[in-house]
């Protein structure tokens, strides 16, 4: 009998641990669009809010699938999501519209705000996406620098931007306003972290965002729903 006591304790802890993990993982919201109950206009899902027209987007404006990223250029998971987003665009072509909004988190990423400004300043010369790609591709380089501005200037030079205008825009009020507008919209939509991706207005979970195959399932389901 005494020999059974430790076994009973171990089994009890195992049951509590497995049960606890199961309970915590049981998400209250459906993880797959196809599992969503049919929605009526009177009862929209709480995470779906009217979308503003994106300032920066790739793909057709009226594409059946709209992916929106709220990102921070210095956030490592955002850097990991970047190639996933590129893969989505190359796989789905003009069936997907991909847009990006800034949500710099300066409390934990000291260059995030300036990086967002660099992208917006490049955008004012028509090269937002070129700078966007460079910032993510070279995230490791400028994130570790004590002062990132010289690197942003170098990227601007590589992109052939008008340097005096870029320098001016980097600190300009319009640039700051653009970044602040995105951040305000993020707050309004309940975005608290980055990357947060919305698919046709529905906030995806981090797992759905960071795994191309899971993201593909969501996109395919959205496309099937539209056809």
């Amino acid at each position, binding site marked *: 009998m005494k020999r059974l006591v430790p076994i009973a304790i171990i089994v009890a*802890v195992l049951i509590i641990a497995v049960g606890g993990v199961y309970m915590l993982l049981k998400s209250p919201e459906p993880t797959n669009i196809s599992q969503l109950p049919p929605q009526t206009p009177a009862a929209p899902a709480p995470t779906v809010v009217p979308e503003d027209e994106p300032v920066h987007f790739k793909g057709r404006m009226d594409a059946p699938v709209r992916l929106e990223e709220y990102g921070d250029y210095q956030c490592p998971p955002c850097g990991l999501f970047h190639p996933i987003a590129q893969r989505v665009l190359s796989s789905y072509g003009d069936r997907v519209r991909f847009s990006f909004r800034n949500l710099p988190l300066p409390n934990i990423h000291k260059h995030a705000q300036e990086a967002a400004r660099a992208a917006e300043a490049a955008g004012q010369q028509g090269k937002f996406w070129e700078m966007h790609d460079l910032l993510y591709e070279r995230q490791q380089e400028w994130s570790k620098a004590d002062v990132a501005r010289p690197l942003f200037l170098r990227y601007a030079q590589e992109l052939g931007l008008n340097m005096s205008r870029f320098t001016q825009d980097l600190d300009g009020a319009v640039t700051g306003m653009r970044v602040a507008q995105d951040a305000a919209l993020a707050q309004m939509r309940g975005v608290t972290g*980055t990357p947060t991706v919305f698919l046709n207005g529905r906030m995806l979970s981090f797992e759905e965002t960071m795994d191309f195959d899971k993201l593909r399932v969501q996109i395919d389901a959205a496309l099937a729903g539209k056809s």
Partner: protein
Amino acid sequence: MTVTTGGSQATLADSAANVGAQGRRRGVWLDAAAALLALVGLADALYLTVEHLSGRSVRCTVISGCSEVLSSPYATVGSVPLAALGALAYFAVFSLATLAAFGSAWARRLLAPLVAAMFFMTLWLLYLQGFVIGHFCQFCLLSAAVTTGLTVIVAAQFFTQRSARIK
């Protein structure tokens, strides 16, 4: 010391038995402490596993300092979260320590190499956080503290057993 009388022999034998009993009692307490500490580690690792699998807090957020660590390539082994492997290790430590506290000698023998392996893994993870990723995650630091505590307990257990055998 030369024992010459029957009375002295009895005293020495009693004394040795007392020391042995004390050593065993202390050993049981140390095993129980290891089991309790492993439960703390298990809870911590399970929390991180759940967070990883649900993706709730590995996003970079204003309040979390863990996102850099938990979203780094070192946070997974293949597709398995490292925290899940940690949870398995802590559960193994808990099971072995519980069995040892109830007198299992083989469980106590297995405990030491397992905790030693976890301790070296902890040192490697601390190195990664400090020198490669450049950020520390408080839940990972808690796990490191727990593993260090387990290592101290296992070392104390080893010396307790050895001194009991020598006496």
